[in-house]
């Protein structure tokens, strides 16, 4: 490791350590917001792991998240919780692998379209299965897992996503993905198996989303298809990651924190206009800050340096 890498690592550990102290404040409201931020941070960062270098917009987060939630909801009475988390990981990987194999061999547009309706499609199928075979729609998840534990678990997932992201950035896979993102034809001609690299990374991002969903299941206690497979979640994740910037590992986090606070304020004050404001945020990002906040800051820093030199 180079010296700046050691410095970043120490900073990250210190940041996580500080964040882990939040439940000690004993304030339930802060903790609830903390859980939301940690959840979005895990989802947005893992989203950016795949979509950042490849520029493929994935709208499947909601589907994988719901998958994880359902794994826990279905198995909580029969299988230990820890095992369920592992099953959720595997389920996320398998689902992402299948979606990836079907769409990622082709151009990016097919992938976007496929993921656009995925959560809705899975919701239809799950509802249908529950209506016809299990007789009731909702599922109960009754555990003694508290909000504090969920929060720490989510921080663990965030740390894991950062570690995996850092490792991928150094590996051959990360190098291959950056080339694919720059020019897919060049990548294919220099002997990179583009489809395999993309599918592998998409699986990583699917696993993280599914695990996050599984961890949040006990928070809800009652789970229904419309809640678990919310299409809105996928869009929020895309906005947050793009707002922060996807070129740096810590970029999405920069978007997650202001967006979560803004979203809290919007849904408290204008509950009927949330969709409209979400759309306006989307347009603002595309037209005003195409490279995210981090991209803006770095461009400013570069300009300052040039002026100084």
């Amino acid at each position: 490791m180079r010296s700046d890498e050691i410095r970043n690592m120490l900073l990250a550990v210190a940041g996580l350590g500080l964040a882990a102290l939040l439940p000690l404040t004993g304030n339930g409201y802060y903790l609830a917001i903390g859980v939301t931020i940690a959840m979005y941070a895990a989802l947005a960062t893992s989203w950016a792991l795949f979509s950042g270098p490849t520029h493929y917009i994935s709208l499947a987060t909601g589907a994988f998240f719901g998958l994880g939630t359902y794994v826990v909801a279905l198995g909580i009475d029969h299988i230990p919780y820890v095992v369920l988390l592992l099953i959720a990981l595997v389920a996320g990987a398998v689902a992402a692998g299948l979606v990836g194999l079907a769409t990622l061999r082709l151009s990016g547009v097919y992938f976007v379209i496929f993921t656009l309706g995925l959560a809705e499609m899975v919701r239809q199928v799950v509802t249908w299965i529950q209506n016809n075979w299990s007789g009731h729609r909702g599922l109960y998840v009754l555990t003694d897992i508290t909000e504090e534990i969920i929060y720490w678990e989510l921080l663990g997932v965030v740390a894991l996503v950062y570690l995996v992201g850092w490792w991928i950035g150094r590996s051959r896979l990360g190098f291959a993905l950056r080339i694919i993102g720059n020019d897919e034809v060049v990548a294919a001609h220099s002997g990179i198996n583009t489809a395999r690299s993309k599918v592998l990374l998409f699986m990583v991002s699917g696993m993280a989303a599914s695990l996050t969903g599984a961890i949040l299941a006990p928070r809800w206690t009652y789970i229904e298809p419309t809640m678990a497979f919310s299409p809105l979640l996928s869009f929020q994740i895309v906005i947050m990651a793009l707002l922060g910037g996807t070129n740096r590992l810590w970029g999405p986090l920069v978007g997650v924190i202001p967006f979560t606070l803004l979203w809290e304020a919007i849904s408290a004050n204008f509950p009927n206009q949330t969709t409209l404001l979400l759309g306006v945020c989307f347009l603002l990002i595309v037209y005003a800050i195409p490279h995210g906040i981090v991209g803006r800051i770095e461009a400013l820093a570069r300009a300052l340096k040039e002026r100084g030199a």
Partner: protein
Amino acid sequence: MDILVTGLLLGGTYALIAMGLNLQYGVARIMNLANGEMLVAGAFAAFWFFTAGQVSPLLSIFLVAPLTFALNWIIYRYLLLPLVKRAKNRGQLEVDSILATFGLSFVFVGIMMAVFGGDYFTYSYLAEPFVIMGDIYALNRIVAFIMAVTICGLLYLWLGKTRTGMAVRAVSVNPEAAGLVGIDVLKMSAFAFALGGAVTAVGGSLISTFLTMDASIGVIFTMKALIIVIMGGVGEVRGTIVAALILGLAETWVASVIDPGLTLAAAYLMFILVLLFRPQGLFGRQSS
């Protein structure tokens, strides 16, 4: 037999909607994810004219079409053209336009929610029985089908026989080469985008005569139109029509034999089959 006719009737309307999207994506190269919201806007307009002024949807489309044409032209000129100019390559444009139209679709849904509320809306227009070969169908579905087929036919003739239609097809095949032979590519793209939006909105007006809609249903129709366009092949008129009929049949079959809640799953199944076996579309050219 019942399924066959109902499916074909539904497919005819789908063809019109998908044709609108195909003009936008195939010619203007904009993957318009706000397409379904334009459809809902058309449906809302028809609903409003009918309940407020007893104007038949068949007449109000003559007002809906020019209005949505103008609206889509403005969207292309002021929101999407900057992206077209900013983009360094087609991939960049695709990502940008997907995100922008996505935001746009949310804005539209938000506006329609604010104006009309989140309730389902429906009205009773020509809900009379009509007998085909011993089975009874709703007259409004048949009228909508006939209108859709007429408009599709006119579009097909226009694209194939007129000078402007030929220019539009040229841009669709190769924008650079079209520019070289003296076609104003940006003007044609704006025109095709506006026309596509108008066609979709008219499709929405027609579909609202027999389906119950609400403000946030647009994305489902966007999804279906996208699947039809890809199934038929981008820029292919015949392919779009055939694919729309296939999707209409498949959905009707699933809805009546298995469960009405699974229509999107049926559309997905077709999508996966196309992706696995014929990604260039049923009538698509082999390339890129």
